[in-house]
């Protein structure tokens, strides 16, 4: 995948340190994401992957380190100054984080309306298009509480995609989905990258998904970037930590 190396860096993270409840979650984590690529971030549960993702869109402030998004250091930005950066990004939360007081259609339409789209016909068409992408067209009137976990996640994905962000952050997009839907989400991520050049950062444990979508893979281990490379390099690695992770071995006694 050397074709990506000459590309412009979209996100550059250096020496990120974060402490939560006295425990150091990130201990100088550094990572580069190139424009238009899909980077898969692997790591153990509770290892700080989601925490890292939240820093990229300014939902958390690190103890130290720097995050440059599109040439702009976002650490120093105030909440209101973050808005333009966030408008170019989309984030899929682990549990969807749908607004439970709104219907599916209103959830997906929310970013459109918030950015000043007043023509309801345009909103309706775009919402339909976004829901079609996640295979949920026709569910517009349902309330989030009446949806299954997987459906919620897909509605949340439609909401994140409806404004066509330049960069997408996915927090476990395929966890809790059946294998067929999971595969269609993988293909969707791929399609967005190919057709629209969307930069994607995907946090996952799902190795199959990782091998399907990744241009680059990073492994977050003990708060640092333990491995960075392509899928082939990951597969061929002889490092025991990486091998355990790829093959899903725990070393516990049966």
């Amino acid at each position, binding site marked *: 995948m050397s074709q990506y190396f000459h590309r412009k860096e979209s996100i550059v993270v250096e020496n990120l340190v974060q402490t939560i409840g006295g425990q150091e979650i990130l201990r100088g984590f550094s990572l580069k994401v190139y424009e238009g690529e899909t980077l898969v971030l692997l790591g153990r549960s509770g290892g700080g992957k989601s925490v890292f993702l*939240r820093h990229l*869109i*300014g*939902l958390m402030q690190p103890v130290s380190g720097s995050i440059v998004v599109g040439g702009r250091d976002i650490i120093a930005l105030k*909440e*209101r100054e*973050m*808005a*333009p950066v*966030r*408008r170019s*990004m*989309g*984030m899929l*939360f682990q*549990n969807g*984080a*749908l*607004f*439970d007081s709104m219907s599916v259609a209103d959830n997906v339409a*929310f*970013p459109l309306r*918030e950015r000043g789209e007043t023509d309801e016909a345009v909103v309706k068409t775009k919402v339909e298009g976004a829901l079609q992408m996640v295979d949920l067209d026709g569910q517009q009137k349902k309330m989030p509480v009446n949806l299954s976990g997987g459906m919620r996640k897909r509605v*949340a994905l439609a*909401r994140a995609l409806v404004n066509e962000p330049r960069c997408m952050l996915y927090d476990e997009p395929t966890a809790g989905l059946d294998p067929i839907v999971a595969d269609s989400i993988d293909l969707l991520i791929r399609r967005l990258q190919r057709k629209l050049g969307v930069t994607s950062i995907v946090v996952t444990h799902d190795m199959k998904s990782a091998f399907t979508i990744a241009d680059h893979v990073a492994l977050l281990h003990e708060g640092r970037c333990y491995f960075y490379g392509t899928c082939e390099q990951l597969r061929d690695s002889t490092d025991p930590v990486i091998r355990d992770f790829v093959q899903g071995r725990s070393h516990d006694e049966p």
Partner: protein
Amino acid sequence: MSLPHAVGSTIFSFARYLGDLALLAAETLRGIVKGQIRFRLVIQQIYEIGYRSQLVVLITGGFTGAVFATQTFFQFHRLEMDTAVGPVVSVSMFRELGPVLCGLMVAGRVGAAMSAELGTMKVTEQIDALRALAVHPVDYLVLPRFLAMLVSMPLLVAECIAVGIVAAYFVTTQILGVSEVYYLSNMLHFTGGRDVAMGLIKGVVFGVLIVFISCHQGLNAREGAVGVGRATTEAVVIGSLFILIVNFFLTMTLNIFFPAGK
């Protein structure tokens, strides 16, 4: 922990809490200045805060007026000052009972709902989702509630006072047999614009306190359902205590501008 240390840390955390509230208020005003007003949400909140609180407030006002008139009458009757019940009830409804009781009821009804709603949004990451979608949570959640409260609270207080006075009038003249004409003329003679102003100003201040205290509790809720429960309880308790405490200082201050009985 030694006593001075305990006292010191309590004062410190109280000062920090006041600072937090002030910052939230400042952020809300910044949102207004930046034109982030969503009128649809303001109307929706006026419906929630103002329209739907009416029954509670009317019942509170009505029965307080009635019982206060009755007790006053029992005392004044012995002094043969029956017609003084009118002004006593109306002035105290305007200056104290109306705004304070209305404030307490709104703190219980609206304040609890606000902190529970925002708290649930916080613990289910909906607030983070707002932020990730480039929407400032204060602009979207606090600002409409603040503006709706500014509109609703004076009206609720006015309703509460009006119903209280009408109920007092009815009880005193129709049940306890005081002359209608003397009652009314005395009441109108001793009640003035100063009393109305005091009641409404107090109402607005209490409303603003309720909004910021409840929204602050909600926005800072953590640890799931337990956290939301705690935030809701605290919003009502802190809101009610603040209303009672601030009311005293407000009475002393406003009395300079709107002196009683002159």
